[in-house]
């Protein structure tokens, strides 16, 4: 052993000797051969894969049950569909919840909402079912109308609302008679 150097001597290793330093650095520099396993302490890779699969399956099955509340549905101005429509969504995997939905009231009228805000109808296009009612709410300061060939709300004052039930299927473009650039449509299936 060469003379201990001035550097502090930890664990009896002489930091002055180059071989000793290299040996200590080897794991950092990757000189030490791995056996090919990727380990992330404390979990190993296979545990991660198993957890991932479990999460995926959980998400997959819970999403199937809860489709009425997905983001795209909300964006299009849907209120949660009447419970009777849940039956169509269930394909039998979650049979317990399917039987639950038949108990719900399927005769409740569905009211869908369109807001008049910042001189626009939101949503600009709304898809509804025959028999549904659309309620327009004026969230602007100025009066607006919802007027088409087949329906006319007349002036709707600020903060007031107006409803119309659609008994026929079809596409109903409409506009505000006061502000002709405010255009929208109701699609009834």
């Amino acid at each position: 052993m060469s003379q201990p150097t001035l550097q502090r001597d930890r664990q009896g290793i002489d930091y002055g000797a180059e071989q000793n330093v290299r040996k200590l650095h080897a794991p950092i520099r990757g000189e030490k051969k791995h056996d090919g396993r990727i380990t992330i302490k404390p979990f190993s890779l296979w545990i991660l894969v198993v957890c991932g699969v479990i999460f995926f399956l959980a998400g997959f099955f819970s999403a199937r049950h809860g489709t009425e509340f997905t983001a795209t549905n909300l964006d299009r101005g849907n209120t949660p569909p009447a419970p009777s429509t849940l039956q169509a969504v269930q394909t039998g995997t979650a049979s317990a919840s399917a039987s639950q939905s038949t108990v719900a009231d399927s005769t409740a009228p569905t009211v869908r909402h369109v807001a008049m805000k910042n001189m626009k109808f939101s949503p600009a296009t709304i898809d509804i079912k025959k028999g549904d009612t659309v309620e327009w709410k004026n969230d602007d300061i100025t009066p607006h109308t919802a007027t088409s060939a087949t329906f006319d709300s007349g002036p709707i004052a600020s903060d007031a609302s107006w409803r119309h039930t659609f008994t026929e299927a079809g596409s109903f473009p409409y506009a505000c008679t006061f502000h002709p650039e405010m255009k929208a449509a109701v699609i009834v299936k």
Partner: protein
Amino acid sequence: MIKKIALIVTAAALAAFSAAHAQTDSAAAAPNDAQIAMIAVVADSVDIDAGKLAAKKSSDKEVKAFAETMIRDHTAVNAKATALAKKLGVTPEESATSKKLRADGDKELAKLKAMSGAEFDKAYVDNEVSYHEAVIGVVTNTLIPNTKNAELKSLLESAGPIFTSHLEHAKQLQKSLNK
């Protein structure tokens, strides 16, 4: 020698610049909330008056409908602005800007009163386009940035889309009248 001339010229330029700047500063000093409220009310009133004239005078159905929308919408905004000012205990205050707005509006009204028929329609709509462009500019660049009160600011911000929709409507009318 040249250095001396350059120095004198620079000093003179700076003096002139700061003098001009000071002048515009005092003329366009940022309005306070009371002045902003008044500017908004006057801007609406000017358009309401023009709209009342057009609703009476015009024989074009579209122009009449547009004029009625102007009356309806600007009255609604005015009502909100006045109610808010009252609630905040702010008395709308005249300023150079509000006086100029009213003076220009009166001038335009006098011009329009002397016209009739298609000439009137065209002049009214052309004026509405440039007027709304100017008002949108004032609201966006002067009023909203300088408003201190949050409720007044939010009212002005909601007026933005209203005036923009008026401008679009007026431009469509302008196109159809110029056919």
